[in-house]
């Protein structure tokens, strides 16, 4: 019996560089599927037990002080509401620049994260503090915009690409896209893959540089850890710079086990190619205590070098104020209260 090789090949998909390197030149929906299905499974009980064990690390004194500052420096301070206005964005930016007006040694956040139409206001409010600005120096705050019909991702490809291109043109440094979960869950991996490749291309600026692409898996809708792992590989193969857990609009959002399983993919990708991919848990991380567990998990899974804004972010809004409260407590020895931290 002979097999029809051409029929086995299946539909071709976008020739993304990483996928070509890892899967090979015969890049098709079928070869992609085989690759993803060949990845070792995840045992949910074992994964959750490991995450829980990492969560019991006791981070005290000097380590805690370092961790609190680092959490702030890794935060994408976020507002993603239907009710967002230019005024709200300005207020958010002010908070991002000076998280604690009573303690100017407090670090700035990594980025503000807004809807695409709010990018111009964020840019204006940041002014010289914007990472792209000539006066910002090596630091500076990035602007991240959610795009591709966030949060559901239910729109035509053309709309998603236009959404992305417009945000980039307006000055977004980073694009947080959502994958098509419907396509993923019905097994149309090629479609999800092609879309990420296309969005990545839409991140291209006129000068040939690219806005950083974070790919939101919306793990709460993928449901199983096996799906999360497969989607993580898919997003990386298609060219994502970051893989991100959630939109924050679906429960459960980020959890420690989900983030751990994504970090394991990133670690494996690094072992395989030497390339470093970022991870962003988003949604549901509200306390310093919870955030420190993530830092521990990152450091003990992929290594400490991942604890920098290029490779790890928290997508959060209320987290920042809890960290500031803890920071104040560490400095003064007593807790203040919500009246002593500013709202954005």
């Amino acid at each position, binding site marked *: 019996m002979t097999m029809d090789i051409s029929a086995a090949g299946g539909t071709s998909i976008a020739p993304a560089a990483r996928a070509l390197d890892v899967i090979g030149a015969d890049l098709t929906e079928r070869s992609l599927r085989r690759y993803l299905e060949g990845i070792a499974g995840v045992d949910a009980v*074992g994964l959750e*037990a490991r995450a829980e064990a990492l969560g019991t690390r006791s981070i005290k004194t000097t380590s805690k002080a*370092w961790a609190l500052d680092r959490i702030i420096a890794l935060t994408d301070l976020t507002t993603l509401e239907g009710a967002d206005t230019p005024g709200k964005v300005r207020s958010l930016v002010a908070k991002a620049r000076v998280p604690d007006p009573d303690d100017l040694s407090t670090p700035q956040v990594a980025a503000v994260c807004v809807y695409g139409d709010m990018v111009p206001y964020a840019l204006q409010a940041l002014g010289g503090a914007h990472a792209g600005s000539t006066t910002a120096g090596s630091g500076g705050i990035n602007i991240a915009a959610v795009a591709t019909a966030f949060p559901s991702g239910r729109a035509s490809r053309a709309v998603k690409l236009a959404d992305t291109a417009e945000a980039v043109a307006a000055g977004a440094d980073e694009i947080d896209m959502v994958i098509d979960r419907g396509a993923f869950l019905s097994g149309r991996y090629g479609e999800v893959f092609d879309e990420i490749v296309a969005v990545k291309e839409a991140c291209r600026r006129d000068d040939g540089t690219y806005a950083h692409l974070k790919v939101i898996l919306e793990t709460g809708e993928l449901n199983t850890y096996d799906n999360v792992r497969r989607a993580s590989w898919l997003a990386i193969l298609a060219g994502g710079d970051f893989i991100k857990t959630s939109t924050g609009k679906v429960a459960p959002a980020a959890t420690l086990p989900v983030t751990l399983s994504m970090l394991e993919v990133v670690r494996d990708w690094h072992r395989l190619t030497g390339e470093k991919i970022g991870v962003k848990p988003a949604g549901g991380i509200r306390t310093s205590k919870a955030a420190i567990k993530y*830092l521990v998990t990152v450091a003990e899974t992929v290594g400490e070098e991942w604890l920098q804004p290029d490779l790890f972010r928290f997508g959060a809004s209320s987290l920042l104020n809890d960290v500031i409260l803890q920071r104040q407590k560490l400095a003064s020895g007593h807790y203040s209260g919500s009246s002593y931290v500013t709202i954005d």
Partner: protein
Amino acid sequence: MTFLDYAPAPESTAILNLKSEYGLFINGEFRPGNGESFKTISPATEKQISTISCADEKDVDSAVAAARKAYERTWSKLSGADRGKYLFRIARLVQERSRELAVAESLDNGKPIKESRDVDIPMVAAWFFYYAGWADKLDYAGLGPDPRSLGVAAQVIPWNFPLLMLAWKIAPALAAGNTVVLKPAETTPLTALLFAEILQQADLPDGVVNIITGAGETGSDLVNHPDVNKVAFTGSTAVGRQIARSTAGTAKKLTLELGGKGANIVFDDAPIDQAIEGIVNGIFFNQGQVCCAGSRLLVQESVHDEVVDRLKARLSTLRIGDPLDKNTDIGAINSASQLGRMRELSDIGEQEGADRWSADCVLPSEGFWFPPTIFTNVSTSHRIARDEIFGPVLSVLTFRTPAEAIAKANNTPYGLSAGIWSDKGSRVLAVADKLRAGVIWANTFNKFDPASPFGGYKESGYGREGGRHGLAAYLAPAYRTAAKGGRK
């Protein structure tokens, strides 16, 4: 200093209220022993913790006499429900004093506080709660209606899980209506003596539980005492053999829980990250000083290199050091003699041609320490693949087919535990069916539950602890006279 050099987070010893000297706990009170007192030290620092009395033959005699008297006059007369009340009370007191017990256990044994705090002590309480519930339901223990207790139980326990082994022994014995004389290990008597204080707090009738300390001779006097009805021993196979010999021909009922050389079988379709965690947990939990440790890793040849690479990377993140630091993963080895055995067997492994690899870690200058170690290129005929090392030393062997994995896993004089890692449920069940081991874990390792029986095949001993089976080890069917006949 980097983030991963977590700042010290030591659990305080201020919660302990230790005496400088402990007597024997006989008939509800502490009294000095006639033997020569010995000191118990912290294996992490070699510093003395306390002075412990040693029971000689006369002390053993009075402990057994106290247990006999308590059995005849009090404990066997109590209803199951009333015995249960005492056990519930003990369980709650263990919970209340859990932090203190965890600190004492880590201090005396050398195990990391995260293990004594999160595993040992919670399980001690769970064991007493579980058997408290059985005390008034003995009719359902599988021995027919009205099973009877045996009398005085002599129990000798090891040093690797001092308080947990005490709970495994005392809880079912008391629930079934027996009284107890227990001897903790010479190197780890501390928590058993704190437990004696808990018994006083619980107002347990005098003599129901007697705790006598000492070395091997005390244990031998105890199990050979003529007025003992039941002997339960957990420890080495060599001592187990002696006990089997000396109790043979007597009316004493015997259970032995001895050594092991557990196989942890990793198939090529295993959930790899969790399998690595399971391997680590299987052999490095409690510094590998676990009778059911997965000390032989059987890994499918096609994934051998990947598994070993990942394992080495993972071992490099283990934190070895002060057992009382909440971030310590690997604590101290319990005693100099154990450390000596680990060193000796590891050297033999190297001489026999296996490749030794140890995690790069700084060992404290004082105390007893052994780095997490892996041997690759191990053959089934190597001593490190056959002898129980009882330390953080893993021997890696390979297999090609499930049949070979099963044959190699069973090729040991022991038969206590095994683990199987595969994503394919049917394969897990098919392999588990053919393994000759008392406990088989699938996609996990070293999981315990009071409701689950535990015990071994072959040289790993006989009898079961835990669950209904563990209860049956302390019971006998009711006396029945044929003349009266019929069922009750």
